[in-house]
């Protein structure tokens, strides 16, 4: 049996970027079609994961392992569980849509843009497959490079400030993780995550490691107060960059918590869970208010991303209160699943929101809310999608945005009703900032004459929006398939939490 499926997934887009680059700026259309072909191929290959994968088995599957750096015992180790597969599918799905979305929008060096996108996609898949901490770290850092380039070259006027801020912020975070990983290596003699999860550590060691991981992943998620790179990066990034950043890259932070903090330092994670929970609730309430007053649509959605990702970290860390405090494994699973569903859903919803803003930006070349108003008059079909995604962003049942938040609120009520109270506040503030924006952008009479010249979405844009809409609705109407895919892995993770290391 072919057992290099994961390697194929990672390297297909990365290697596929070479012919795209070679097509050169002289043949932009060839570069576009080649890039699309690679993205579609990657997506098709990723679909093959599903029949190969046994969802009933909680073990890591489709394992690949080769010695990579023998002197350090570093392996090129890949494997997936249900959580990884869900995120990989999200990545490959979004991968196609950003290529299509950038089609004629990117006129400047399209071959390089497309190639950077493909490389980025491959590296992100690598992050979700790596079972060796150092390999994870390499992918984790390497993916900053294409994103740095995407923002730095195709970005807006303040792109240099934004891209440097993005790079230094995230890089600074991951340095701490690297130190933590080196410590673990010295202790265990390996970077294998499975072995590290079983490594006994004292509370003091765990605490140091916990904060090393926390800084790395909190920046990535991003959590308050290390979130300020995100609005700047989004504002300056090209549409496709924003979509990938919001839809996939932020998820790597949440994924990191699941793969590193929880299994390796469970006791410290329990001890400091209150901190993460508190920061998550601050993200929901405080950031909600900040989002309310944004004048730039992209900034607004960026802040809303921070608030929504608060549910991810909340769902993950209340698991400790539930498993170890209340002894309710099922409730902890509910919260953890909620966090996972929220990650996938936020991938669709934020990706779609940024695409919508991009569609408007391409026509009016401004992201400022006050320049719009009455867009529905000239773009009714676009309006349909915009309202749909805005509703998903407000967590309306029937859309994917509801599922994760619902599950996390239900679970957190058991952990502590006050947590649920603050978390549920998103119902009000989330609707307020999203729909107020909709009111000012979409509804109303046209006041800016340029709005009257805006053209209805074309077939290419419609394709991207329909794909996002289908995903948002499918997940909202029937989340069970996704939950089933991740169930065994989440159970395994939650059971692991119950085991004390000291």
């Amino acid at each position, binding site marked *: 049996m072919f057992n290099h499926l994961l390697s194929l997934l990672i390297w297909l887009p990365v290697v596929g970027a070479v012919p795209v680059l070679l097509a050169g700026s002289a043949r932009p259309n060839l570069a576009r079609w080649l890039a699309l072909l690679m993205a579609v191929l990657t997506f098709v290959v990723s679909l093959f994961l599903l029949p190969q994968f046994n969802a009933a088995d909680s073990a890591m599957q489709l394992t690949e392992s080769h010695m990579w750096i023998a002197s350090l015992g570093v392996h090129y180790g890949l494997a997936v569980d249900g959580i990884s597969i869900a995120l990989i599918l999200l990545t490959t799905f979004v991968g196609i849509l950003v290529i299509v979305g950038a089609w004629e929008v990117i006129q400047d060096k399209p071959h390089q843009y497309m190639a950077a996108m493909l490389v980025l996609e491959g590296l992100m898949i690598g992050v979700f497959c790596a079972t060796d901490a150092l390999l994870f770290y390499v992918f984790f850092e390497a993916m900053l490079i294409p994103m740095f380039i995407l923002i730095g070259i195709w970005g807006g006027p303040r792109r240099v400030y934004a891209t440097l801020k993005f790079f230094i912020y995230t890089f600074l975070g991951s340095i701490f993780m690297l130190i933590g990983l080196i410590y673990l290596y010295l202790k265990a003699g390996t970077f294998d995550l499975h072995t590290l999860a079983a490594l006994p550590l004292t509370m003091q060691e765990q605490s140091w490691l916990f904060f090393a991981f926390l800084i790395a992943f909190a920046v990535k998620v991003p959590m308050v*107060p290390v979130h*300020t790179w995100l609005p700047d990066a989004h504002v300056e990034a090209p549409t496709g960059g924003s979509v990938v950043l919001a839809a996939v890259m932020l998820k790597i932070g949440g994924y990191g918590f699941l793969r590193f903090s929880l299994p390796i330092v469970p006791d410290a994670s329990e001890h400091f869970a209150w901190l993460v929970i508190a920061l998550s609730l601050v993200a929901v309430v405080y950031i909600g208010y900040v989002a*309310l*007053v944004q004048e730039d649509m992209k900034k607004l959605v960026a802040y809303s991303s921070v608030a929504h990702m608060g549910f991810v970290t909340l769902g993950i860390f209340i698991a400790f209160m539930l498993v170890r405090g209340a002894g309710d494994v099922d409730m902890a699973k509910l919260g953890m699943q909620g966090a996972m569903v929220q990650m996938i859903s936020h991938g669709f919803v934020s990706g779609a929101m940024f695409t919508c803003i991009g569609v408007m930006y391409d026509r009016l070349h401004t992201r400022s809310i006050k320049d719009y108003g009455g867009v529905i008059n000239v773009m009714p079909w676009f309006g349909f999608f915009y309202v749909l995604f805005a509703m998903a962003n407000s967590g309306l049942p029937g859309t994917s945005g509801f599922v994760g938040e619902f599950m996390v*609120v*239900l679970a957190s009520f058991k952990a502590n*009703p006050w947590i649920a109270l603050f978390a549920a506040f998103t119902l009000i503030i989330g609707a307020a900032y999203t729909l107020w924006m909709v009111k000012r952008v979409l509804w109303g009479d046209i006041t800016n004459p340029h709005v009257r010249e805006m053209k209805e979405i074309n077939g290419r844009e419609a394709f991207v929006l329909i794909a996002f809409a289908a995903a948002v609705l499918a997940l909202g109407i029937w989340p069970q398939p996704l939950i089933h895919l991740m169930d065994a892995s989440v159970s395994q993770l939650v059971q692991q939490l119950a085991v004390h290391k000291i």
Partner: protein
Amino acid sequence: MTLSTSILLTIALAPLVGCLLAGFLGKQIGRVGAHSVTILGLLVSCGLSFYVLYQITAGGAPAYNHNLYTWFEIGRFSASVGFLVDRLTAMMMVVVTFVSLLVHVYTIGYMADDDGYQRFFSYISLFTFSMLMLVMSNNFMQLFFGWEAVGLVSYLLIGFWYKRPTAIFANLKAFLVNRVGDFGFLLGIAAVLYFLGSLDYQTVFAAAPGLVGKTLQITQNHAWDAATVIGVLLFIGAMGKSAQVPLHVWLPDSMEGPTPISALIHAATMVTAGIFMVARMSPIYELSQGALSFVMVIGATGALFTGLIGIVQNDIKRVVAYSTLSQLGYMTVALGVSAYSGAVFHLMTHAFFKALLFLGAGSVIIAMHHEQDMRYMGGLRKYMPITWITMWIGSLALVAIPFTSGFYSKDAIIEAVGASHRWGSGYAYFCVLAGAFVTALYTFRQMYLTFHGKERFTVVEHHGHGHHDHDDHGHHKPGELAHAPHESPWVVTLPLILLAIPSLLVGFFTIGPMLFGGWFGQAIHVEEANNVLGELAGEFHGAAAMALHGFWSWPFGLVALAFVITTYIYLFNPAMAGKIKTAFKPLWTVLDRKYWVDDVYFAVFARGGVKLGRLFWKAGDAAVIDGALVNGSAGVVQRIAAGMRKLQSGYLYHYAFAMILGLILLLGGFWLVGQ
């Protein structure tokens, strides 16, 4: 005889199919196509709903309770999409689909000139689907889905004329105020799961008695009774959806939407979802006297005080809107005294007569070329007799004249409140009695101003075209019409007639079984000690006797008094209205400003929220995090680097000096260590 899944699915999905066809293929199938498919969907849905009601009532079919598919399943928790159809649900299904069907037909006439014709049909069919999902649900997850979906459609329909600034303000306001309610509702659902371990109605109700004695730890030494917490939290949801004080502010503004939806959504069905929900949750509410008292006091306050505002309104639709708020208060009071079936009974009769009043008001608005101000109406009865008579029927039902449907339901509620001994029932009794007087005042005033007295409009026939654009009805001076008013087409009057019939008769025939005959069976649960309707049953000797007795009761006396007052003022001495207004200027101002509730909310929550957001953004994100920490640390690095750079002067003697200095320090250090 059993209910079949396919029939129930068809009932729910037929309107959805109509919605999708009219919405996505509106251009292709055209106007006729759009209203045909949606009305066909509603016909199927309504016909089958009647069949289900027949099956379950006459056919002895047992309640249907099955899941269709699993929404999520995690450990011992799961949520499904499924239907629970018992008598309560079946009655709601008939009310929803029947009123919706008539509103669909009416819309053909009302929206005839509107550009958004297909879109409107698509929305109201989507609404019907959502409302059916809400009432047919067998679990809390789906209930919440329907709950929010009807809120979405309400949002879309209030803002239907999206060019109007008032409309898009009103729809945002409606959505957000409802979200405040949903905030409580969601926490209520979480509390249900926490205490009872399930989201499925059947399981929850079976386990509900176990709530007794359980508490929720709020602080270290403070705990609340579990049933009260659940009851109050769920009711906060109902306060949003059913526009109870203090979350009532969105409903009057929702009148910005086209009139058909005011009838369907903001009178007959959606706003009663909260009432339905509490009735459905009766096994939980019965466990908490505290929660029920809370419900009763809130409802009573709304019943009286929102009705008072209705007296000073000049917009014909706003009068009906405040009347709806007041009547929702009556239903809520009934819930609060454990007369759940009384509440649901009033919900049903109210759906008919209030939809009738709204659609009648709409018919008047068509005749007046979209003038809604009653000060420019008067004497319309001779132009539009069908509207006039049917609206009088609706009004008589609203003020509860004996033998009308409204009498049976409202009088039963007043009696039940009178019989209740629950904390706060004295206050509630005062409110519902006084409310009866107030209801009659604004209702008769509205009827007189609209249909009777002198004509206060003039017909100016200079335009010579029948153009009446919804978005621009300001090109006439107020009170000037391009054509004489005329009776509306049959698609408008037929629904009026079909609603007038149940407004008159349905109460007479159904009060016996529904209120006193245990018709609802297992669907509504009342503890023996709380059963006020059970006590009243002993005094009930048939509908006719109750009506005859009604002529000698307090409420009827108050209505008669109000009739005399309004008749004198508006038919015989119109100048007196102005005099009274001047005499009671402060009181009038209080009512005209709606007790300043809207103003306070806007200042505190809307403006305050934005101010808070600005503060967080500028002080927190921009100043502290970015200014001081992020760019600040970058600045520190830069300054240090700049300082360090000065050391690299490039002069050889500087470096030589530094070397010598270093050597001296080093040697000195060794020397010190050696000592």
